[in-house]
């Protein structure tokens, strides 16, 4: 018995998508390749800056920053974690991963914040983007890698592209949520005093949404880190590359070393961003 659908042939969805992507690649490759070059150089530059000085100096810098942003405990934890990574000889890989994640997160925030704010202010826009966000989040992240390569070439920028798409939805969602959950009476109070939409947004809605927005950014960073191994498959390097190599060679010890390194980076970034969100909560 045939497994084929009766009456009509298979819809050539895959071919349509391929053709569409081919066309996009052909038309826009010069832009995407330019972006790729700029971002790729940027990432290389930052990695170089972070790995050029002796690791202890960079560790001291990160520790001071974490201490300043999130307090003594996080500062000490940061120092201990990074020293451990240095000892494991994963320093360069760690800096590559950190740079990649921070670049991807920055790009994500730049796109997600305005979209999230619009979603918070306009119900119609909110309803329009929701299905797109669901799509972005549930599509297996691997799939984004395939079209990324013709656009951006092999390497870090393709990995960033896939990471940005995969990690953007929570930032948008939580920004929207943050704006929407500002109590209606506060918005009304701002209106009653004649605040313009812009003043309302800057003086009332955004500040009150900061803790929620920070929670979204925190989620974004965590998702971005979860992408590093996948991104390593197209040559992004870093800690993901170490894991990927360990998988291919069946070396569980090396795999765990790199895995633990990822966890440490994740914990540092998580604690720091959480503290920034908490610091902005009203009513100290």
């Amino acid at each position, binding site marked *: 018995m045939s497994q084929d659908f009766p009456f009509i042939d298979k819809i050539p969805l895959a071919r349509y998508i391929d053709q569409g992507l081919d066309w996009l690649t052909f038309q826009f490759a010069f832009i995407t390749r330019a972006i790729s070059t700029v971002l790729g150089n940027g990432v290389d530059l930052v990695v170089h800056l972070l790995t050029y000085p002796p690791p202890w100096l960079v560790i001291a810098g990160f520790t001071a920053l974490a201490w300043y942003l999130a307090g003594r405990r996080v500062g000490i934890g940061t120092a201990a974690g990074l020293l451990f990574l240095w000892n494991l000889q994963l320093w360069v890989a760690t800096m590559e991963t950190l740079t990649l994640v921070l670049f991807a997160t920055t790009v994500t925030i730049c796109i997600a914040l305005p979209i999230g704010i619009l979603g918070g202010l306009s119900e119609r826009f909110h309803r329009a983007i929701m299905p797109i966000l669901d799509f972005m989040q549930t599509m297996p992240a691997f799939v984004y890698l395939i079209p990324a390569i013709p656009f951006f070439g092999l390497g870090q920028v393709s990995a960033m592209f896939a990471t940005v798409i995969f990690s953007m939805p929570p930032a948008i969602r939580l920004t929207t949520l943050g704006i929407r959950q500002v*109590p209606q*009476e*506060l918005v*009304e*109070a*701002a*209106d*009653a*005093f*004649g*605040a*313009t939409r812009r*003043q309302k947004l800057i*003086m*009332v809605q955004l*500040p*009150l949404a900061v803790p929620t927005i920070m929670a979204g950014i925190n989620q974004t960073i965590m998702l971005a880190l979860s992408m590093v191994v996948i991104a390593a498959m197209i040559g992004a390097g870093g800690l993901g590359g170490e894991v990927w190599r360990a998988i291919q060679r069946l070396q569980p010890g090396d795999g765990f070393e790199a895995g633990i390194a990822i966890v440490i980076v994740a914990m540092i970034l998580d604690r720091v961003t959480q503290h920034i969100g908490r610091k*902005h909560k*009203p*009513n*100290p």
Partner: protein
Amino acid sequence: MPKIRIENLTKIFGEPAEPALELLEQGLDRKEILKRTGLTLGIADVSFDVEQGEIVVVMGLSGCGKSTLIRCINRLIEPTTGCVEIDGQDIARLDAESVLKLRRSKFGMVFQNFALFPHRTILENVAFGLEVRNMDPAERDNRANESLRQVGLEGWEQAYPAQLSGGMQQRVGLARALAVDPDILLMDEAFSALDPLIRRDMQHELIELQSQVKKTIVFITHDLDEALKLGDRIVLMKDGYVVQVGTPEEILASPANRYVERFVEDVDKSQVLTAGTVMRDAGAVGFRHDGPRTLLHRMEKLSYSSLLVLNRDNTLAGYVLAEDAAAAIRRGDQDINDILKTDGPRVGPDEPLTGLINLLADTRIPVAVISESGRLLGTVVKSNVLSALADAKAGEHDTPTVPDESPEAPAA
């Protein structure tokens, strides 16, 4: 020209409004309109004027449309038909830009749940309206500080709203509205979220403040006592319609219909209030072992004309008049045996207000409320009774908005 003129103002929630308006023309009520069209009638055919410097209280039960009405005045809610004129200008015709300008220049608003910005300090909260106007920061802080001083909150500038009690938060709300020096104050159930004692204080303070600032005030409440106490005139609403407009006396003396009567009957119920519920903390007192100089000094400091005197066990010994204490000092008395009077009015906490009024009518000194064992529980002065008993006020006094003495100074 009235400060605010409201004419045939109607608000239908929902679109399109026409079918509801038609049914309204036919005289159907809110329930029927909702059933037939699915649209909610907010307010229907409301007309009244507010004169410059007047306090108009809009009162009714929840859902009567009073909150909708006050929001139509500064167009937080768009009226469906009818007109609202501020200083002769129909605000329904203004474009969005002009509405913002109007709100900045003419209105201050105070909200039921304070609506303070939790992320801003008290000073920043009060300065909000000025910041919206892009006022120069130095001048802005000056004005905000001045406004905080007006409501008695100096020293709290750098605190956050969550650190303040409800009563203080609403003072901030009031200061925020006053800081922009508005012509019109819109107060939406401004005191309803406060507990009764604080609420009474705030009412008194509003009256006192109003005597200095002379704003035009539209005050929303569901509490008739509050309406009678604050209102130069009262607008009574029910189911979106205005039922009666009049001075407190008019409303009490000739209720327009059963609905108003029922409210007024509620006021009569307040006669079941007792001395124990209206009394205040006695404040400063003297003691039996004090000398005349001590007592007189205390009275002068508080500008009291008399002082209650307690025994060591806190039972009431009597009272001393300021002039008697002065005479005793001239005579060189060291104790108060000669000047202590014991004939002052004293009641138990269960004494009904009606009895208190008679006592208060012919005494200069506060009525002492004492327990069975003779301990002083508190005192009652005229204004306490007046604030609790609107009925007595309407019967005996010309205007309920001016209490004849400040609540803090018994027997001034």
